C-alpha cells in the first residue's frame, strides 16, 4: 500500500519532460539539450553536525558530504558525460532526469586522468541524447554559446539555461567563455546555436577573488575519446537491488536543509529494503547514516526528546531505524574500520547502543 502511494505521488509530481510550468504561468518548452541534461548527486561520507533540538536536547546527525552537478546524456543506452570533479570522492552516485524526482541507479564507468571528464552509466534507455562530435569544432571568438544545467537549489526539477560567448582558448586547451555559471552547473553541456555539443563545463570564476562571469569548458572531443575508451570495456554486470536502492538513499540523504534532515515516510521504506541489500562498508554506512538521521528527524518532528516518549506507531518506526543504524554501523566498523574517517557518525551510532545518544557538552 505504501509503495503504491509513493508511486502515485511520483506520477503526480512528475511533469512531462518536454515542458514545464504551473497552471497559471507560461508553458516553457525544453530544448533537446535540456532534455538530455541530468542532475548528478554524489555522496562521499558524512560530517557530524550537532544542533539544539526543538525539545531542548542536543542532537547529532550525519550530514552528507554531497557533490551535485550536471551531466549530459550522450547515447541512447544511458551513457552520461560529466566533469570529473563532480564525482571525485563520491562513494555513490545518483542521476535524476529533468522533471523527475526519483533517482536512477548510476555507475561510474570511466574517469579521464588528464581532463576534467567522466562517464557514467544509468539504468535506463535514454532516447533523448546529444551527439558528440568526433571532429574538432571550428569556432569564432565572440560566438554565441549556450549551456544547460542544475545550478544551486538541489530540489529544482528542471534544468536552467544560460548563454554567453566564446572568449578565448586557454593555453591548456580548454575554452574560456563569458558566461555566468554557478555551483551545480559543472559537468553540464555547452552547445552552439545549431545545438551541437561544444564541451562540458569544468570551472567557473572564483567569486572570492572577484572573478565573475567566466566559465571554463573541456572540449567535446575529450568526451569522444572517453567514449571510445569505454566502448572497449566489457559489458557491465546486471544492475543490482543494492544499486537501485542506494540511488534512492543518496538522494534522500542529500535532501537536508540547513543541516537538518527531514522525516519522510518514503525514505523509511527504502531504508528497510536497503538494509537487507547492502554488501559494502560504504553502503552500510550510507544507509546507517540515513536511518540515524531519520530517527532524529522523527523525534524533532514530534518534538520529543527520546524514543520512549513517542506514541506507539512512531516509537516502532524510531526503534526500527535505530536497530538498522546500529546493526549496519557495527558491521561496517568490523569490516571497514577506516570509514570512521569519512563517516564519523559511525562512532555516534555504535556508542548509542540502541538509544538516541545525546552528545556531551564541553
Amino acid at each position, binding site marked *: 500500500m505504501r509503495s503504491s502511494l509513493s508511486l502515485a505521488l511520483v506520477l503526480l509530481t512528475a511533469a512531462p519532460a518536454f515542458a514545464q510550468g504551473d497552471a497559471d504561468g507560461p508553458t516553457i518548452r525544453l530544448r533537446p539539450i535540456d532534455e538530455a541534461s541530468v542532475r548528478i548527486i*554524489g555522496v*562521499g*561520507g558524512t560530517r*557530524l553536525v*550537532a544542533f539544539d533540538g526543538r525539545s531542548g536536547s542536543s542532537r*547529532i546527525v550525519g550530514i552528507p558530504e554531497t557533490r551535485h552537478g550536471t551531466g549530459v546524456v550522450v547515447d541512447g543506452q544511458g551513457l552520461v558525460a560529466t566533469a*570529473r570533479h563532480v*564525482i*571525485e*570522492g*563520491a*562513494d555513490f552516485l545518483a542521476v535524476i532526469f529533468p522533471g523527475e524526482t526519483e533517482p536512477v541507479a548510476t555507475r*561510474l564507468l*570511466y*574517469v*579521464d*586522468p*588528464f*581532463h576534467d571528464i*567522466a562517464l557514467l552509466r544509468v539504468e535506463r534507455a535514454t532516447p533523448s541524447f546529444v551527439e558528440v562530435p568526433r571532429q574538432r569544432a571550428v569556432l569564432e571568438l565572440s560566438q554565441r554559446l549556450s549551456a544547460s544545467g542544475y545550478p544551486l537549489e538541489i530540489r529544482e526539477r528542471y534544468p536552467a539555461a544560460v548563454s554567453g560567448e566564446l572568449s578565448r582558448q586557454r593555453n591548456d586547451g580548454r575554452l574560456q567563455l563569458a558566461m555566468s555559471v554557478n555551483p551545480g552547473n559543472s559537468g553540464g553541456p555547452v552547445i552552439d546555436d545549431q545545438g551541437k555539443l561544444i564541451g562540458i563545463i569544468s570551472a567557473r570564476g572564483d567569486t572570492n577573488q572577484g572573478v565573475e562571469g567566466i566559465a571554463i569548458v573541456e572540449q567535446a572531443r575529450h568526451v569522444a575519446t572517453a567514449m571510445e*575508451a569505454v566502448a572497449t570495456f566489457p559489458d557491465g554486470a546486471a544492475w543490482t537491488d543494492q544499486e537501485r536502492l542506494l540511488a534512492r538513499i543518496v538522494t534522500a540523504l542529500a535532501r537536508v536543509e540547513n543541516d537538518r534532515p527531514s522525516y519522510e515516510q518514503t525514505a523509511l521504506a527504502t531504508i528497510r529494503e536497503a538494509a537487507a541489500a547492502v554488501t559494502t562498508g560504504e553502503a552500510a554506512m550510507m544507509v546507517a547514516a540515513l536511518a540515524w538521521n531519520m530517527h532524529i528527524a522523527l523525534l524533532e518532528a514530534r518534538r520529543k526528546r527520546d524514543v520512549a516518549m513517542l506514541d506507539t506507531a512512531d516509537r516502532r518506526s524510531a526503534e526500527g531505524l535505530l536497530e538498522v543504524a546500529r546493526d549496519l554501523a557495527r558491521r561496517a*566498523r*568490523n569490516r*571497514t*574500520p*577506516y570509514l*570512521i*574517517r*569519512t563517516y*564519523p557518525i*559511525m*562512532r*555516534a*551510532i*555504535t*556508542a*548509542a547502543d540502541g538509544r538516541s545518544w545525546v*552528545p*556531551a*557538552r*564541553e
Partner: protein
Amino acid sequence: MPLRLLLRRGGWSGLAAIGLVPLLLACFPQQNRGGGGVTPAAGTSGWRTNAPAGTGFSVSMPGQAQLEYETETEIDGARATVVEGTVVSGQMFFEFAVRTVDGGLAGGVEDLREPNQNISENRSFNDLRVREERSYRHESGYRVLETIFDSKTDGGLAFTAYIRVYVGRTRVIRTTVALPTAQETIYSTQARYFFDSVRLDPADSASPAGNGAIDLDGWSWAYPPEGSFAAYYPGQPRYTSSTFMHDDDERTIHRYVVGGNGAEPSFVVRAIDYGERPPEEALETARGFWIREGWTLSGERPVERRGFGGVELVLRKDGRTTRVRYYATNAGLYEIYVERPDTTTDAVDQAERRFFASFRML
C-alpha cells in the same frame, strides 16, 4: 602542591606532573602514597596487582594505587572515561591511565602519540629530549608506542621517564615510570617488572588500533592520518617519511611498506604532498620517474578510485615486475605499487589484487 592535584589538573594530558615528581620525591624521599611500603632497593616483593574495574587492564605496582576517575569529551562528542592510578615509591614514580572511549577510538595513530605530544609541548620540562621511540605489537594484539624521555627539573635534577602507550579498539592505556636518571641502572629491575606485569584484554585489541585492524589471516587495514588513505595490507606496514624540494618548497613523502626484502613482494603506498600542482601535471611527472630509473614500461591504462582519476603502469626491470597505480587529487598524489619477482605464485597474484582493490582515498 599535592602530586594528586597536579595529575588531576592535567587529566589525560596531565603528564606535566611527572616533571615535578623527582622534586617532590626529593622532599619526601620515602613517601609511598599507595601504602605498599616497599622501598625500591627491596626489589619487587610485596608489589600488588592493580586492576581497575571494567578496564580489562592490570599491572603490578609497589602498592595499591588510589584511583582517580574523570569523564572527558572527544572532539566529535564521544564520551571518554579516564581512570588513573599512581604509586610513588622511594624516588620512583609509577602511573597508569586507562582511557575508554564510547563507540571506539577514531584516531589510532593520533591516540598512540597523543601522550608524547602532550609531553613535548609542555613548557614545564627543561631540556626535554626523546632518547628512544619504537612501536610494536603487544602479545595481546594491542599496538604499543614505547618512548624514553630525558629531561630536567627546574632545580636541575635530571630524570628519565619510560612511557608505554597501548592502543586497543576502545581503550588507550598509558603506563609510566619516572626516576632520577642517575639511578636508572639501580632501579631498572623494578621498571622492567612494572612493564612486564601489564595485562591487557585481548578482546579489545582486534579493531581499529590506528594503523590497522588485524584480520585473522594477518591482513590489516592501515589508515594513517598523514596520508588520508586506507589500504588493506598483508601485514602491519612500516612507516617512513622523507622530504624533497619542489618549487622552493619542502614537500613530504609518507611511505607505508610491507615486505621489500630482496625477493619478497613489496606492498607500498606513498602519499606525496605536491602542493597546488594540477593533478594532470603530477601524473605526467610520475610516469616519467620509473623510466628514468631504468624500468621498461610494458603496459598502461587509466584507472579510477572513488571518482579520482589515475593511471596504472606495469614496469619490468632485472627479473622483477612492478604494477603501480597513481591517483591524483588536489591534496596530493598517491602511489600504490606491488613489486615482485617475475616468477611468482597465485597467492601473490591474489594478494596483489586484494591490495589494489582495497585502496581508498579518504
